[in-house]
């Protein structure tokens, strides 16, 4: 499976080769799901995002358009746009604590709660960024992509990606690090 390059996969996809399309799904859907989960924090929404991403990909191929290279970046861009539209359409779903929720046997509830709160805090901070800045941060520091790959996904030059990254990190630092420090100082 790994012997297929992105170009090979794209050629197969344009020919509606179901094996190749299956390979594409297997290779890229986990990453897109993870990406969606990190931004949306909801399994159902993340599944919807994956399904919609691949459906749009098929439609684009059908219309004769679509990417000529950087298939992975292209799919992430579709997912990113879907998530951004979702943000615009409706506010973030409030996280509620259900009585029926059961604690993970392997982790203490207080630790789990702390993790959830930290995740929520980071997600809120990410939402304060612009869509492009958010995508750069996620892809660069969470997914671990290189500048060139991110540039391909956003269809921007590498220099622009670096500028976006710089501004995004500055904003996050203010929200997550400096703000917290000020809070602590205030308590003291």
């Amino acid at each position, binding site marked *: 499976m790994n012997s297929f390059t992105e170009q090979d996969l794209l050629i197969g996809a344009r020919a509606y080769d179901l094996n190749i399309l299956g390979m594409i799904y297997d290779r890229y859907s986990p990453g897109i799901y993870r990406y969606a989960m990190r931004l949306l924090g909801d399994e159902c929404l993340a599944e919807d995002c994956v399904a919609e991403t691949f459906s749009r990909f098929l439609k684009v191929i059908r219309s004769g358009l679509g990417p000529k290279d950087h298939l992975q970046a292209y799919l992430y861009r579709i997912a990113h746009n879907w998530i951004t539209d979702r943000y615009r359409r409706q506010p973030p779903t409030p996280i509620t604590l259900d009585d029926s929720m059961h604690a993970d046997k392997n982790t203490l509830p207080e630790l789990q709660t702390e993790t959830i709160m930290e995740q929520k805090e*980071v997600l809120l901070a990410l939402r304060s960024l612009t869509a492009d800045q958010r995508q750069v941060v996620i892809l660069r520091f969470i997914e671990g992509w290189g500048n060139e790959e991110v540039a391909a996904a956003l269809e921007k030059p590498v220099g622009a990606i670096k500028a976006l990254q710089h501004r995004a990190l500055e904003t996050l630092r203010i929200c997550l690090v400096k703000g917290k420090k000020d809070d602590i100082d205030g308590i003291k």
Partner: protein
Amino acid sequence: MESNNEIDPGLRKKLSVLQLEYERDPEKVKRGRSAFLQEAEQFAKTVSPLNKMRHNGWINSIQSIFMFRKKEHTPMFNTLMTIMLVFTLVLGGGGTTLVAAQNTQPDQPLYGIKLWSEQFRSNLTNNPQNKYQLSLEFADRRFEEIQNLFQSGGIPTEEIQNRYINQVEQTIRFAMSLSDDRALNALQQIQERLQIQNQALLQVKTDGTVNADASLTRTRLMIQERLNWIEGGLSNLNQLREQIRQQEKVHEQDPQNPESNAEQATRSIPEGGAGNPWTTGTPTPYSGYGPGDCTNCTPSGNGESNPWTTGTPTPYSGYGPGDCENCTPSGNGESNPWTTGTPTPYSGYGPGPGSDPSQTCTPGTGDDIMPQPTQQQIGQPTQAGPQPTTTGTGSQATPGSGDPGGKH
């Protein structure tokens, strides 16, 4: 990781909470994969690239040269762009055409657009004062067009002249719709303009042809006539308002013929002696009123020269034999069919004096007396100058052959 050097360690730690591996339900993965392949299979079965899409590659290639590369297929964006482009072309192109049309002359293709735009502007204006000012401006434009035509060696057609004079009349009409004070000021303003324009025409040099001179004279006469209106209006505003109302009635009766309404109204002057409804002042030379300047005119006699009546002349209408002091009545009493009584001096009936009163008139036999006015006589309704003879000269003046003008 290369990115680790670019980020604050504290921040990296914060972000690491998102680097959890999320367990995905294998069942959902299977269902999602199956749905994706099913959709792909449907596309593969039924859809090959649409015909119209097949050759779109080269369009995109060309677009990519001039435009930013599209990230995704965005039909809504394309539709909006198309609509905006159409609006831009229509409005922008229309605006450019309108601006370009403003300096056109009557013989140029965009002149109609110029007139239309002026009409549109006038219709959009509600304030009577603004309407008047606008109309005055348009009248100036019409005059400039005529002046330019003369100066370029052309001859303004009757249509162009009428358009100008109609605009002047329109301006007067708008001026009359103002309050009395403003109307008087407006009339004075129009009067000044017309006087300046009249003077300007005096200085115009035509190419010397008869047509050009006649056209120039006609234009000046038109201006002169409107000056007379204004003169009357300045002395009696209500009278001018009444005249305008009458003129509008004439216009309503024949809206298809936009030829100078005033001219039509002038032609429809009622019975002789009732005066000129358009002016109470002294007739101006060449204005069409007052005695003519024809000294040696011979009546044309074709009967078509009098458009006012084709009926039988009535007493005191100015037709029939004139009053001749030295003439002897023809004797058979048939020479004047309009009265059987004794002709009253200066009544217009009875034998005429002939052109030379010193000549002795010989009573005629009645054969050469016109039993009734001929078409020649009808052709001279109110001609008041030196009178033409009909069938004879004064030396042979016989009863009935004298002054057809009767009373003057």
